[in-house]
């Protein structure tokens, strides 16, 4: 099995107040079968053995479904592969001697906690503002009681696949959270279950998004390109349409 030597340039920052900076590392014996995060595990093992602080990075499921990992690799959120979260990226995408620059997602609304870890609770507050539906408590209702057309349920499901990783914000030249907010709004607004709060939800989530300090959307569609689950910017267009409907009714 051939191994590679990888040169890393990693953003290190002690805490939110620290100004931070890049640190160079050389990593030998990197296998092409390693995932990107496993490569970082190897780096951290090396750092710990040297008595240094390991690089902090967010991760959980490591199978592309939790949305924890979100780092900007050589200028691209989640790295070079489309429809792939950083945890699903493998070192076979790189060659021996490559230099990889790793930065945290940069946005005022995502303050850096440490190294590559950022505080994404702004997303939670957008969800809290309207990302829910009213249900009758008590006995669970029959799942198919409310008929939903197949096309509608497919569309809603496409929007529902958003894992909230924040790559859209990281990659947007304006640091806009429109794709995330649009996906959440479009998911619930597409379904009959989301109908009762449709207007209130759309307005509340749009207002919260702005309050958090995310930038404006300029329709660059870079968010769709980096989204590990491929959420379409049509969600943003739907959010805008529903916003106008909410205001004029």
């Amino acid at each position, binding site marked *: 099995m051939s191994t590679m030597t990888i040169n890393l340039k990693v953003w290190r920052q002690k805490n939110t107040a620290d100004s931070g900076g890049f640190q160079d590392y050389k990593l030998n014996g990197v296998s092409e079968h390693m995932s990107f995060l496993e490569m970082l595990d190897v780096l951290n093992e090396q750092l710990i053995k040297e008595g240094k602080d390991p690089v902090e990075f967010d991760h959980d499921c490591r199978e592309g479904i939790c949305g924890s990992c979100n780092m900007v690799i050589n200028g691209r959120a989640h790295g070079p592969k489309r429809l792939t979260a950083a945890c699903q990226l493998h070192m076979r995408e790189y060659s021996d001697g490559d230099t990889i620059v790793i930065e945290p997602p940069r946005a005022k609304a995502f303050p850096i906690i440490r190294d590559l870890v950022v505080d994404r609770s702004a997303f939670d507050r957008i969800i809290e503002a309207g990302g829910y539906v009213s249900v009758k408590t008590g006995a669970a209702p029959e799942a198919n009681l409310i008929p939903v057309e197949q096309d509608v349920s497919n569309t809603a499901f496409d929007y529902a696949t958003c894992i909230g990783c924040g790559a859209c914000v990281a990659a947007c030249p304006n640091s806009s959270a429109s794709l995330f907010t649009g996906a959440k709004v479009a998911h619930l607004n597409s379904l009959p279950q989301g109908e009762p709060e449709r207007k209130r939800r759309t307005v509340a989530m749009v207002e919260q998004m*702005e309050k958090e300090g995310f*930038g404006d959307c300029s329709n660059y569609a870079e968010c769709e390109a980096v989204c590990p689950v491929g959420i379409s910017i049509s969600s943003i267009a739907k959010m805008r*349409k529903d916003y106008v409907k909410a205001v004029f009714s």
Partner: protein
Amino acid sequence: MPTLLKAATSQVGRKILTGVTGVLLVLFIFFHLGGNLAIFGEADAMNRYSLLLHDLGPLLWVARIGLLAVFLIHAWIGISIWINKRKARPQNYQVYSSKGGPSKQSLSSRSMAFTGVVLLIFVVFHLNTFAFGDMETILIDGRETHDVKSLVIDTFQNPLYAFGYAFVMLLLGTHLGHGIWSAFISLGLTSKKASAAMYTIGGVVAVILAFGFIFIPLYIYFGGGCEATLIECR
């Protein structure tokens, strides 16, 4: 529900306003190019067209003020988006690149603020030259009117003006390359097929408009449209 003012100034409201004003401005630009084409008509076609517009009387002023408002709203929101963008990411990436695929990052989309500001400055000079410039008075069908045509032909004899104008019109085309499609997305176009078609149509329209506006000053500079004027052309 938010008040209309609050809704209009929200992030989504601003985007929709940018789209609406953008579409109106594109319609105006079409109209403007149509008027400019009078240079290829009869010798006095351009001055007749000007007379026709002036005959609209108060309606012309309504159109002018409306157009100014639309233009200023579009420019103001565009500049505020650029300011917000800097606030939203105080520290830039050391390395940044597009992931391609569905991304619409291009020279056109990334230069919207720049091309927009150049167009804003251009319009000030443009109005100063052609709307408020000194014009001779001539008679058309026994009625006194401004000799717009001579002013246009005279102005474009200056290579700096003719080529400068053509260059700014290239920037207009660049602005519209992203702008036309973007306006439709801002106004709620959700269908993927329609979006792809719109991107192509927007690009074609941008090229047509830019070509028209670039061709005319160069045509005049190289001696075209000189009949019935007192200007010494090439």
